[in-house]
């Protein structure tokens, strides 16, 4: 069975800088993989490459296809950007219906089927009654659900989330990720998300992949990947990892000298820090 998304030796240069240098990553149907990595590691660039928004070398195959036109790709892959552009004055109903764009000619209006799909998604995401409100008037949590609604209205099987929780408080972070998880199960979505919060990355999804130095340095279950040694090596961070039945909890330790010594990885003596420039 072909993978939903399969990246083979993916190379991306931005303005002459090698951002990704040989990324290999296959994500199977219905899987949720969280991509973590230090700032500037190229997490967003990786998602943009999958969306066809940056030039790349190597192969990206989406549901087995490597050559996809824009609209075809948009019918297979939906995207929730980290900081979506919220057009002033645009109503929630109009905004969510933008998700139907890849399903029709740019000259055609939306059909009643399009409107029904949008209304269904709004209902599912608890946004009934928001249709005639301006998107920019919504709270952070409502807005994030609205952007997610647009992506779901696209009816793509693959969902890319770029830091979907950045602007949200803890409760809303959980709401959004719980929602994504429930939708993934209902609709069999494949999810690739970038996340800063390592504990959240451990709680949600099946696998975690560390993107560092332009490659996928580690990939596996949260327990396998989120170790003190790996985090010290790739994030240049001193942490303690606490075992919890629901997955590892990553706690930063204070960076005074004594704490740093205490938290030094027992098995990571050869770890090279700062390898992510």
């Amino acid at each position, binding site marked *: 069975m072909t993978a939903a998304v399969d990246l083979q030796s993916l190379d991306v240069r931005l303005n002459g800088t090698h951002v990704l240098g040989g990324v290999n990553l296959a994500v199977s149907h219905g899987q949720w993989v969280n991509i973590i990595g230090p700032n500037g590691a190229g997490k967003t660039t990786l998602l943009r490459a999958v969306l066809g928004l940056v030039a790349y070398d190597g192969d990206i195959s989406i549901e087995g296809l490597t050559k996809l036109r*824009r609209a075809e790709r948009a019918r297979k892959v939906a995207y929730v*950007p980290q900081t979506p*552009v919220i057009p002033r004055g645009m109503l929630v*109903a*109009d905004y969510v219906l*933008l998700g139907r764009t890849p399903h029709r000619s740019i*000259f055609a209006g939306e059909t009643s089927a399009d*409107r029904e799909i949008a209304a269904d998604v709004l209902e599912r995401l608890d946004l009934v009654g928001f249709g005639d409100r301006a998107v920019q008037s919504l709270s952070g949590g409502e807005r994030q659900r609205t952007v997610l609604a647009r992506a779901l209205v696209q009816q793509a099987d693959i969902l890319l989330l770029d830091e979907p929780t950045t602007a949200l408080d803890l409760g809303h972070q959980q709401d959004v990720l719980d929602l994504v998880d429930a939708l993934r199960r209902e609709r069999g979505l494949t999810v690739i998300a970038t996340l800063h919060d390592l504990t959240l990355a451990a709680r949600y999804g099946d696998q975690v992949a560390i993107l560092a130095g332009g490659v996928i340095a580690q990939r596996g279950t949260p327990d396998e990947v989120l170790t003190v040694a790996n985090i010290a090596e790739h994030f240049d961070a001193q942490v303690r990892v606490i075992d919890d039945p629901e997955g590892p909890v990553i706690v930063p330790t204070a960076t005074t000298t004594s704490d740093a010594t205490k938290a030094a990885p027992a098995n990571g003596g050869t770890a090279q820090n700062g390898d992510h420039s």
Partner: protein
Amino acid sequence: MPTELGVSRLRAPALVAGILAVIIAVVAGLTIGPAGIAAPRVLMELANLLPGIAVESGLSDAHKAIVTDIRLPRVVLGLLVGATLAMSGATYQAAFRNPLADPYLLGIAAGAGLGATIAIVNDIGDGAGVFDLVPLAAFGGALGAVTVAYLAGHIGGRSTASLILAGIAVASFLAACQTYLLQANADAFRQILAWLLGRIATSGWSEPALLLPYFVVTTAVVLRYRRALDVLAVGDEEAAALGLEPRRIRLIVLIAASLGAAAAVSVSGLISFVGIIVPHAIRLIFGSSNRVLLPLSVLFGGAFLVLADLTARTVLSPAELPIGVVTAFLGAPFFVFVLRTSRREIW
């Protein structure tokens, strides 16, 4: 069955309001004037122009000539120029995602101004017989300026900001050339200034006929892309992720809007304000969606300019005010009024 979504689309009340505005402006433009011709007679005379209709309006031949040969072409020209400028302005604002964009943003005004100045200074407008070369020179200058701005902006990295900056650079350069020509030819100064301030003066049907094809093409292209422009509102990156080619769409609508604006400017001079104020007033009243905004810009832009022209030719009658003075004088207070009373957030 979920409740029906309230999607933005051009609804009957807005369309009726726009059509009514055009009808009121046309009737006012045809009836008000020093000759004092009653509105019903004007309407009957207009009906006579339709094929297969012959009614006796009771107007004298002189009055008939005033209505059909003097006022009607002028009203039609006002409709075309106003509609084109408002629609082009709305298109520029959508394509650049910038509320301050107007149809002159990429150097059209400066290019047209330089072209007209060269023509007037060289006096090629006079004695050329049937063709007045000033509009042609203005049209050429406007298109040349936009083309240079577009090519220069493209070199500068393809972002909309670099395109706008290129437009500003081109406009400054052309304005400098124009100022030089003005200084060197002081005797042509009044004529050039009069052209720059704009007017809807027409002798007969040549100007409306000149503008009509551009108006038709611009309207057809821009209205066809109205939904795509709504998608572009989320930015190029997200629009591309939704399956569109934002750069191609922007290029097409900007070419169409620039062509229309250049043609409008070439026959009417630089009429300020219409391209910004009319679209924004429509956004405040009817909402921001381009599906609503673009068609209504055609109607309200045309009506607004006909009424502005009516004011321009009546307040100081028999002298005429430059129409640019009137558009700003009427438009600014009206816009402030709409801004104060509207509860919509448009940008």
